């Protein structure tokens, strides 16, 4: 029931929610002034989105190079890996858990693809299957430790963060493995303009959105994250669903790893280090709550784009390397602040 209060369960908080909404509509100073009402409503209902819009506007003003089709596509490509990881993490966070292992699992899955295809000279399609299976297996192991071993998700996935990274190094003997050329296309562009990573990101996002909104497992994720006891009493097989949740997260991590390696045409054992924090940040910036029960694929996409725009912009603006980290920190805080302050009563 702690979850209930945290996720604004009590009537009192429910109130603030309602009021905040009204206020949002009333307050003239609110973001999105003088916009067509529809767009305005959308922005007001989604803090992350308005933060993204603000950032894009600012960047366009600051750098002449920002608002070009090419650069925006670059931003898309640069968001892809984080976004795909984050979609997987969204399942986990919605269900009230956390997954720190996605970065390592991505690297391990990519290494497995390269290793099976190159060292073991298996057909590429089989290598891809094995790579995805690797991701799912890691995820399922997380799920087993959490659902049946009763480990806190933080610990189980932290252990996997370490173990999967180790296995990636062991398998590759610590050296980058050449990625099968057949896969290189995944890093290229379609029709000379549409980057495949962006395409993959959108497809995975669509899948995530569908799963969360319309499938039994998706709804179970919200139920488990919102009130696990209630979910159990409603006949939801919570432990089984947790396997699904972490398995999915692993699968998405594998896809992210493949996209990453395809871009570099090389599978790196130390790739995607620390990406788990970016992925979780994207999900939370997108409006999900780490106490579970809330979150959307669309929000996660926006969160990932915010991070990508930020990094891209800082490059274009040639902000000194040391200061960049300061600015990144400040902007992340501001972006979310923009949202919460708007909600404030």
């Amino acid at each position, binding site marked *: 029931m702690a979850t209930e209060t945290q996720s604004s369960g009590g009537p009192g908080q429910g109130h603030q*929610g309602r009021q905040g909404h009204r206020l949002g509509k009333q307050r003239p100073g609110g973001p999105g002034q003088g916009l067509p009402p529809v767009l305005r409503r959308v922005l007001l209902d989604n803090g992350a989105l308005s933060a993204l819009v603000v950032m894009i506007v600012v960047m366009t003003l600051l750098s002449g190079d920002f608002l070009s089709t090419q650069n925006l596509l670059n931003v898309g490509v640069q968001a892809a890996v984080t976004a795909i990881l984050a979609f997987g993490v969204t399942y986990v966070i919605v269900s009230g858990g956390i997954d720190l292992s996605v970065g390592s699992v991505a690297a391990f899955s990519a290494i497995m693809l390269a290793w099976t295809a190159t060292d073991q000279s298996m057909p590429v399609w089989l290598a891809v299957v094995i790579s995805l299976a690797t991701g799912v297996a890691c995820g399922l192991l997380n799920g087993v430790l959490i659902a049946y071993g009763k480990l806190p998700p933080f610990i189980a996935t932290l252990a996997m963060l370490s173990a999967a990274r180790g296995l990636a190094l062991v398998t590759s003997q610590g050296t980058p493995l050449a990625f099968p050329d057949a896969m290189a296309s995944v890093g290229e562009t379609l029709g000379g303009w549409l980057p495949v990573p962006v395409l993959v990101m959108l497809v995975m996002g669509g899948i995530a959105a569908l799963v969360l909104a319309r499938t039994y497992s998706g709804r*179970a994720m919200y139920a488990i994250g919102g009130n696990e006891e*209630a979910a159990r009493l409603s006949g939801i097989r919570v432990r089984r669903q947790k396997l699904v949740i972490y398995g999915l997260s692993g699968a998405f991590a594998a896809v992210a790893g493949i996209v990453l390696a395809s871009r570099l045409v090389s599978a790196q054992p130390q790739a995607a280090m620390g990406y788990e924090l970016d992925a979780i940040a994207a999900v939370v910036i997108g409006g999900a709550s780490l106490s579970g029960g809330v979150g959307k694929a669309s929000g996660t996409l926006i969160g990932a784009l915010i991070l990508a725009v930020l990094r891209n912009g800082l490059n274009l603006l040639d902000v000194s390397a040391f200061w960049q980290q300061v600015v990144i920190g400040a902007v992340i805080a501001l972006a979310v602040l923009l949202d919460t302050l708007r909600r404030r009563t």
Partner: protein
Amino acid sequence: MTSHDRPPPGGDRHPELLRTEGIRKTFPGVVALDGVDFDLRAGEVHVLLGENGAGKSTLIKILSGMYQPDAGRVLREGAPVRVHGAEDAERLGIATIHQEFNLVPHLTVAENIYLGRQPRRFGLIDRKRMEADAAELLRRVGVNVPPGTPVRELGIARRQMVEIAKALSLRARVLIMDEPTAALTADEVERLFEIVRGLRADGVGVVFITHHLEEIAALGDRVTVLRDGRSVGQVAADTPRDDLVRLMVGRSIEQQYPRVTGTVTSAATGAQGAPLLRVSGLSRAGTFDGVGFEVRAGEVVGLAGLVGSGRTEVARAVFGADGYDSGTVEVLGRKLPRGDVSAAMAAGIGLVPEDRKGQGLLLDASVQENLGLVTLRGATRGGLVDVSGQRRAATGIAERLGVRMASIDQHVRTLSGGNQQKVVIGKWLLGRSKLLILDEPTRGIDVGAKVEIYELVNELTASGHAVLMISSDLPEVLGMSDRVLVMSQGRIAGELTADRATQDDVMRLAVGTATPGAPPGQRHGPRRGASAPGNPHAPGKTERKGSRGH
């Protein structure tokens, strides 16, 4: 004491649905159930009665597969069954409404009702159909909230109705209800009774738990009384109230509402007879408007009204839990800052909130921890907390309120519902507030413990403290208050002197200003002493302070 005159339903029309034999269940330090035999027939309402902590919820948790008994067995239509988890219960046609809400706050009403059983098309959830079905059900139980509303936006009362709708949607042969009426008001209760009577006619067996004894005669067929985990007798539902009480608590209760008026002028108030609390022109858009009243030292002021009339909201505003748009709150003539709980507490105000789980308790902390929370700052010397002093105080009040627990270190989550409520009240009684606001204080508390709490209220007022009591239990308000304020649609509709007021007077004020345009939440009448079958708005005429419930 065994079966009473009217023979309980039996024979072909009433085949046995469910039976337990020698059920025993222990928890660390507690024997919750000790060899309980219980049976339920088709087409009857079997009431479970017992003090807080007697074992009622534990028994139904065993019937619904939440707990496994340490000994004894459960039989469904004569055949021993193993009820292990919700799936088994559903398969065996057993639906349960638990005492603690089991809803997912962020999901919609519709989805909560069909959670885990959502209708699907091509493997995908069919929202349209789900909401349509839900709307149908909600109409049946008579809650007019859109099925798309997130549950978190609903009040306690509506949440309870959603739980009921959810249970009905299972179309079970056995329906178990653990204190479904604790949070309901009269016509919701009435509608619930109509539904239950309908089910009974269709041969459904209903297990019904309540602490409102008047409901037993109104709905029940048989009553099984539990005491300290043992079944101490099975009687007919029309057994006189006093006999039921004696069975339940082992003694009879003379005075249900032992109000003794306190010394109105006292040392506790600075200025002679200056009002302890003066609220004037208190308003918040959409919730309450121009609310003004006074509470004097030694007084118990009742606050009655319909659900959503804004009593809770006013109370929270006075206490600083929420802000307000305009108006003033003064304690002993000193104006309080807006929305500042600690300032209100410093001035001597306390609030026992209506939602014990959400706003009252640290569920995973010990009874002592919870009881010491309000006095924590006071018990701090040079940054250090006087732990042993806190422990002594906590033990004292826990004994006084008869909190049934294995030890003062037991986690509150594992207390029975009523005992949890006692802990919320207890921590504020320790707070020794000059003015204590009680919002639905006796929700889920047994008859015996209620009297104990009323005695404590008397002690407070006798020593010059004052109490503002919000209650949807009219006999309680009329029985325990000196004055009764009636709220309607966020305004004070009038004031009554308790010992001259009848429930009718209160009702007239409460609904009098009701307009067709009133929001859904404002159409429900308060609980009446006798929510016997019949028109909820024609309560027993002669309710007097000090009279027994019946």
